């Protein structure tokens, strides 16, 4: 098993490569979801503040 | 129409000559930057000769970048750009005139000073002619590309630094072929293909950069 992780001595390059790829992809996803939720919550708040002017889509 | 273009070129020249210092500073930047390299890497003649073409070209491109402020920014700030846009002359011709003026004030002085810097960098004799030729073809291209960068960043925050980030990648092909032409001359190989490519870049830059700069100027003044 540990021999597999070693990958003939090259493990120290292969695993970080995959780690970096994963980290970048996950952080793009996380950032996207975070800003989206933040903005939609803000939008919701602003709309509820315009009491009664509930026109839904057209702003 | 040509008269108006000529007038714009003269106007830019006159303005620049009144603040002659600006153009002079760019020239001094060019000289000082090239001087930094022997100080940084040591004065071993072969090393300098090897680096010479590259260093001179890089310094020339950086100096051009510094001078882009003068191209559109000042006119944008004092409102004369909007007036120029309202004139009956097509914007594209105005851009051409301004780029021509910019080259006369920046590119041409750089070219004149270049032989001195080639001496600093211990360039072999064979390289001088092509050095001047490549810069003669290349500095107008850098003015054109710079015009696009300058027009795009009008009204932007940190416009000056942003321009560098935008156009330095675009300068790379110019740099590569400019230097390779000189290296070819020094090495005794044919320079024609390199100069032809530089020429092609110039011919392509004229319509493309003019279009891009005009489009950006219109956006800036909307």
């Amino acid at each position: 098993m540990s021999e597999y992780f070693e990958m003939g001595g090259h493990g120290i390059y292969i695993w970080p490569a995959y780690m970096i790829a994963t980290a970048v992809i996950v952080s793009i996803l996380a950032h996207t979801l975070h800003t989206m939720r933040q903005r939609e919550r803000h939008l919701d708040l602003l709309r509820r503040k315009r009491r009664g002017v509930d026109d839904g889509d057209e702003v | 129409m040509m008269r108006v273009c000529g007038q714009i070129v003269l106007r830019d020249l006159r303005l620049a000559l009144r603040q002659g210092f600006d153009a002079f500073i760019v020239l001094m930047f060019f000289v000082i930057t090239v001087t930094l390299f022997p100080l940084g890497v040591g004065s071993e003649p072969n090393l300098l000769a090897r680096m010479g073409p590259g260093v001179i070209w890089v310094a020339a491109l950086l100096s051009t970048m510094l001078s882009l402020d003068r191209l559109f920014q000042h006119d944008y700030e004092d409102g004369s750009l909007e007036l120029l846009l309202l004139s009956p002359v097509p914007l594209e011709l105005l851009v051409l005139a301004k780029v021509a003026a910019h080259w006369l004030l920046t590119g041409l002085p750089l070219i004149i000073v270049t032989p001195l810097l080639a001496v600093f960098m211990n360039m072999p004799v064979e390289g001088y002619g092509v050095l001047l030729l490549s810069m003669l073809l290349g500095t107008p291209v850098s003015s054109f590309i710079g015009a696009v960068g300058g027009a795009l960043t009008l009204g932007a925050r940190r416009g000056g630094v942003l321009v560098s980030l935008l156009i330095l990648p675009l300068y790379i092909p110019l740099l590569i072929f400019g230097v390779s032409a000189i290296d070819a001359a020094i090495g005794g190989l044919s320079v024609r293909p390199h100069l032809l490519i530089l020429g092609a870049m110039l011919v392509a830059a004229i319509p493309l950069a003019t279009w891009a700069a005009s489009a950006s100027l219109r956006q800036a003044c909307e």
Partner: protein
Amino acid sequence: MPEILRAKIDGNPYILPMFRFANPNRFLRIGKGIMPWSAGLSILCIGVGLYLALFVSPPDYQQKETVRIMYVHVPSAWMALFIYSSMVISSAMALIWKHPLADLIAKASAPVGTGFTIICLATGSLWGKPMWGTWWVWDARLTSVLILFFLYLGYIALNNAFDDPARGAKASAVLALVGAVNLPIIKFSVDWWNTLHQPASVTRLDVPAVHSSMLWPLLLMAFGFTFFYVTILVLRVRSEIAAAKIRNIQLAEARG
């Protein structure tokens, strides 16, 4: 649909499909439908691709196990280029046909493209070290990707440099088109520069002769990344539309 758009569209068979997606709310509805699929397919393709890449595919004769890095490096290079191309197309649509959502699509794509460029550069470096003993090698592809990285950063910087987002969007659209013209020139000149300065040993980060056991993980990772891009695109455009609506409300309130 605004009358102006209707007038442009009538009689033109090519513009109509494009403008079907012009309405933000319609886009949001379509996006909502697409997203679970693209997300699911992305996870599936990447999952299977990773399994094949890390466990099933054989080590290369010359490169031994390090060839496994290729399964992340090459697809990410493809994505970096593909995403830039889609940014160029959307920028053209925004500038020339004034498609309302096109510059949002370009803006949303940029960070994803930048991310893949970073992955490509980092994995390329990690591939280069065991192969040629250095962390960075001025190989034609890596150098071109590095320049592409600068183009992406320039785009994002220009987009965010203006107080008026519309101005930023239009300026970066022009920049994207300028970059499009330059990209082949840059690639050509870097390739050529690389052959000029090629040291004695071959320094091309070459994909080995592709056997089917290597082709599958490569393609699966590429598809997985593409579906990931589509998913993120939908989410980010949704986010941008929300931001635009927020700005509109705030502007309306400021005017009183």
